[in-house]
Each structure stands twice: as C-alpha cells, then as structure tokens.
C-alpha cells in the first residue's frame, strides 16, 4: 500500500508537484492521469526515493520514503521513465543482476527468472545479448527485472509508451494479473483510454496538483461530461490549445 500526504517538490522556481495526497491500496490499480509535464514522473521519483520531497510525506507499506529509503526500495518494483538495459548482457543476465542487487537467494532467483521469462513470453530472447532488442523486447526485460524480487508495490511510469498494439495488450493483461495477485499498482499515463481500461481509481494531475479523482464513472459525473475524454479535459481546467 502506498500513502501520500501533502507531497510537494520544486525545481528552482518551478513547482513541479504541489500538495499531492492520495492512497493506492493493495489489490487495486491506481492511475495518475495527466498531460506531459504535469508532475507524474516527479511524484513517482519521490516514491522510489530518488528525489527528496520538499514538503509532505509518503509511505510504502508503512515505511517513510525519507527515513527508510532502503526498506521502501525493497518493497517496490519500478518501471521508470528511463528504462535502459545493458546491451552487452543477455536478457537473463540483465534480470539476474537486479535479483542479486535485491539479495534474492540464488536458487529462488533462477526459478523466478524462469517464471518471468515464460510469463512475458521471452524464451526466444532470454539468452541473447540485449543489443539490438526492439522497444517491446527491451520493455519486457525492464518489466521482468522490476518484478524479479516479487515486490508487493509496483510503480509503472507510462508502461505502454512506445509499444505497438499487440505489446500494449500483453502489458495490460500482465498488469491485471498482478492486480489479481493482490499487488498495489500505481501507474502513470497521459492516455485516457488506457487509464479507463485498467484503473480502479483515477487521479487527474494538472500542473503539479490533483484536480479530480475517483472511478471513471465518478469522474464523468463530477465534471458533468458523458465522455471520459471530455471529463479529463474538463478536470484539467485548461483551454484546449497546444501547451
């Protein structure tokens, strides 16, 4: 479970995140929906302890991100916005490296890796060097290494960004499967349909602040729009121009 209270972060004069509070419970998919540059990735970066919040607190399974960063990192699996893998290592070696860094015991680790390779349908590339992998193949490696220690909380930054339609559907199936396992899933997206299709709870972020939140139906009701896309735009509270 992830709890966030009054989280704020500035870069110079720019307030990237302003007084954000929400709860992402276990067994649910929580979506942070917002346009590019709304502050979604910055919120995630504070949750995975790479950025320190200026104000506010956040806990992962009860551990404060500021005071117990290592405990937090043990309990999260992250697909960051940056998802580079090591081109000179094979897919399996890439995943194994993260397993070792999490201190997963060797016999357990190899079993986990094999399960993930089957689950993500990457048998064909598992023992190939990652140089020259397609975007989809790279993403599979990045997802597998994020899940190698079987984390309870999963943070996904734009998980389907750059994927073709087949890979997008496979990714959605995986996310739903993780939800069924009772994981706490927090994802960000700027694609409204994706959030509508996946999320139990949607949080709309605009210019660093939460402008609306609820289920898809609640959001439609709240904004008085029958179409979710219109509801999203209405909730952003901005004029429809190139921003």
């Amino acid at each position, binding site marked *: 479970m992830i709890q966030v209270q009054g989280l704020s972060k500035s870069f110079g004069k720019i307030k990237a995140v302003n007084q954000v509070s929400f709860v992402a419970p276990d067994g649910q998919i929580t979506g942070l929906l917002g346009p590019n540059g709304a502050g979604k990735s910055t919120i995630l970066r504070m949750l995975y302890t790479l*950025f320190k919040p200026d104000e506010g607190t956040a806990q992962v399974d009860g551990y404060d991100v500021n005071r117990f960063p*290592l405990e937090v*990192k043990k309990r*999260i699996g992250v697909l*960051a916005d940056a*998802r*580079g893998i090591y081109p*000179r*290592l094979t897919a399996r070696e890439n995943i194994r490296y993260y397993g070792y860094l999490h201190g997963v015991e060797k016999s357990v680790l190899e079993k986990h890796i094999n399960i993930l390779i089957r689950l993500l349908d990457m048998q064909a590339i598992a023992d190939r060097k990652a140089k020259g992998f397609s975007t989809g193949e790279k993403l599979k490696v990045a997802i597998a290494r994020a899940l190698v220690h079987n984390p309870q909380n999963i943070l996904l930054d734009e998980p389907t960004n750059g994927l073709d339609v087949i890979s997008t559907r496979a990714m959605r199936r995986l996310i739903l499967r993780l939800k069924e396992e009772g994981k706490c899933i927090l994802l960000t997206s700027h694609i409204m349909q994706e959030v509508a299709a996946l999320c139990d709870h949607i949080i709309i972020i605009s210019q660093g602040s939460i402008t609306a939140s609820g289920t898809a139906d609640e959001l439609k009701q709240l904004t008085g729009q029958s179409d979710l896309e219109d509801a999203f735009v209405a909730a952003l509270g901005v004029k429809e121009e190139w921003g």
Partner: protein
Amino acid sequence: MIRKILVVTQKEILDHLRDYRTGLTTLLWGLFVIFLMGGMTMLLGANLREKLEKPFRLSVAGMENAPNLLAFMAQQNVIIEPAPADPKAAVIAGDISVALIIPPEYSENFSSGKTATIQLVYDSSRTSVVLDKIQVEELLKAYNRYIGLLRLSVRGINPRVIDVVQIEGVDTATPQSKALLFFSMLPYIIISVIFTGAASIITDATAGERERESLEPLLINPLPRGWFAIGKMLAAIPFTMLTLIITLAAFAILLRTLPLGEIIGIRPGFDAGTLATILLLCLPVIFLAAALQTLVASFTKTVKEANTHLPYIALIAALPGALIPLLPIKPALWMMLTPILGQQVLINQILHSEPISAINVLVASLGTSLVSIGITFIAVKFYESERIISR
C-alpha cells in the same frame, strides 16, 4: 552489504570484458611500448653510433690561408671540404651545419705571433647543429693550445705555467643509469597507462549508463547510492592493473630482445622482480586514478562530456614526473606526501638501482591512498545528489 558492492563490481567486469574497446586499449599500450620505445631506442642507438664512427666533414672558406691548421684537423679524422661561395647563405639554408672562414690576413698574423682571427658560422637555433659546433670549437681549442705550448717552449718557458688547474672527472653514474637515459620515459608512460587504462570503463559505467538511461532504474535497487559508485570504481581497478602489467611485460620483452649491449653499449640491470615492485608501488596511484575518474564521471552528463575532462586530468597527473629532474637529489618528505610525485620519484630510484627506503614507500602509499579516499568520498556525495539522474 559488501557482497552487494561486489555484485555491482562483478557485473561491470563482465560487461566490460565483452566490450572490444577494453581489450583494444590494453593492446594499444602494449604495442605502443614495443614499437615506439623499441623503435626510438634503436634509432637513437643507430644515430649515436653513426656519429661516433663517421669522420667529421668541415666546410672551410680560405683553405689556402691556414695549411697548418687544416693539416692538424685532418690528423684528427676531419675531412676538409671547400665551402660554398657564400658560406653564410649555405648555413642559413641548412646545406652545411657549420662553416669555418679563414681570412687572408690569418697567415700574416699567425707568422708574426699575433692573435689571428677566424670565423665559425653556425645557426644556434638548430639544435642538431650544436654538437657539430662544439666539435669544431674543441678542435680549434686543441690547436690553439698545441701552438701556444710550442711558442712558449721556443721562448724557453715551461708550458706547465699556464696549467693553473687540471680537472679530473670522477663520474658516479652507474652503467645502468647511463643506459636509463633511454628509458626515462617509463615513469611517464606508467602514469599515462594508469590514467587511461580504465578511463573508458569508468565513464561508461556512470556517464554512459546515464546516457543509455539505465542509471535511474539501477539506483532504485536497495543499496545506498554511494555503493554503486564504489562498486563501479572497484571494477575499473583490475583492468588498469592488467593494462599496466601488459605494458610492463612489453617493456620487459623489449629489454630482453633488443640488443641493448650493441646499441647503447650497456645492458640495464633490472628484471621481472623490478617490474613487479613498480607494479606494487603503483597500486595507490591506480586507486587514485579510479577515484578521480569516478568523480568526473559522476558530475558529467554524457560520456562525451566526461571525455573532455579526462585528458587534462591525465596530463596533470603525469606532470610531476616532468619536475623530477628539477628536484633535489634526495627524496624529501613533501615529495613522498604528494600523490603521484612520490611514486614517480621512487620508480626513478628503482630504475637507477638506488636503494629505496621502506618509510618513503609507506608515506607515499598512505598519502596517495588517503587523498584517494577523500576523492572517493566526494564522488559518493555526487552520487547521492538528485543531480545524478536529472537530465
């Protein structure tokens, strides 16, 4: 937790063993030593022998004015040649290195016992000419003295009265140290190897990771961030050592295969054991180089940016070596405390077969190690800042 640092180290070693560039650096240094140093030594040796064996050719204008002088020179294995019509122009053009001009009044002055003037034409801005000029001057001085002694004898004066002092040289250079003039490049090469051997590995492991966008996900793993810096730094050390070993081995092969006895007349007296001592002495410098490079890699955003900083770090590092000839002969405490300089002075002593003191080795090693630890600490601080991932 130490085990997790080693996980990072192990991964980096595997990663870079698969990178052809790593092997290339090592190989290039080996080849550089064998071909460049070997070639240079052969060339210098050949040049030296040629100079010693070949008779000296001297261009003279006004040969008919001083037959005695020229006969004296011919006895000293000098081939006298008539100078071109304009000796000065020929010297300026570089056709001849030096020219002797004997004016018509020489013969008259000489016969009447007056000081006779002759002109030596040379271009001192050409370094290659200096030796020729000195040789001619020496010959002229010898002739001067020879005739002077004769004139004193004729006047019934003991020629000894003009010998006020006599210089007797006692050369304390060992045969090894003479031969080592040819290998004085070694300390410089060692430092260069240490600072370039694994530079690409360290920049690739931090700045390169950032460029490939794999640094941010890596730092989300449950390790204090500075430990990644330390793990990566440790990974560079075996590669630097390997490059240094190969360079020293190439050097050892060079010593064994080059006919040094023939080329420079002397065989330097150091062996595999000496080279191993040098390697051990360099360990703290290897640590220092890795720490400095990790620091640079941690605050630069791209490999390209890191590569603009690293060359001058290597240059500054090798600089103390250039100071050694200017320093007092006896190693002082401050020299040993100066990182790199201490080691270079010690390497120099080893190469000159001088005894080295254990305290100096200890002070130099400790001093350099402490500075390295300090720099590592700063690099770790950079790793812990948010800047490391913000692009």
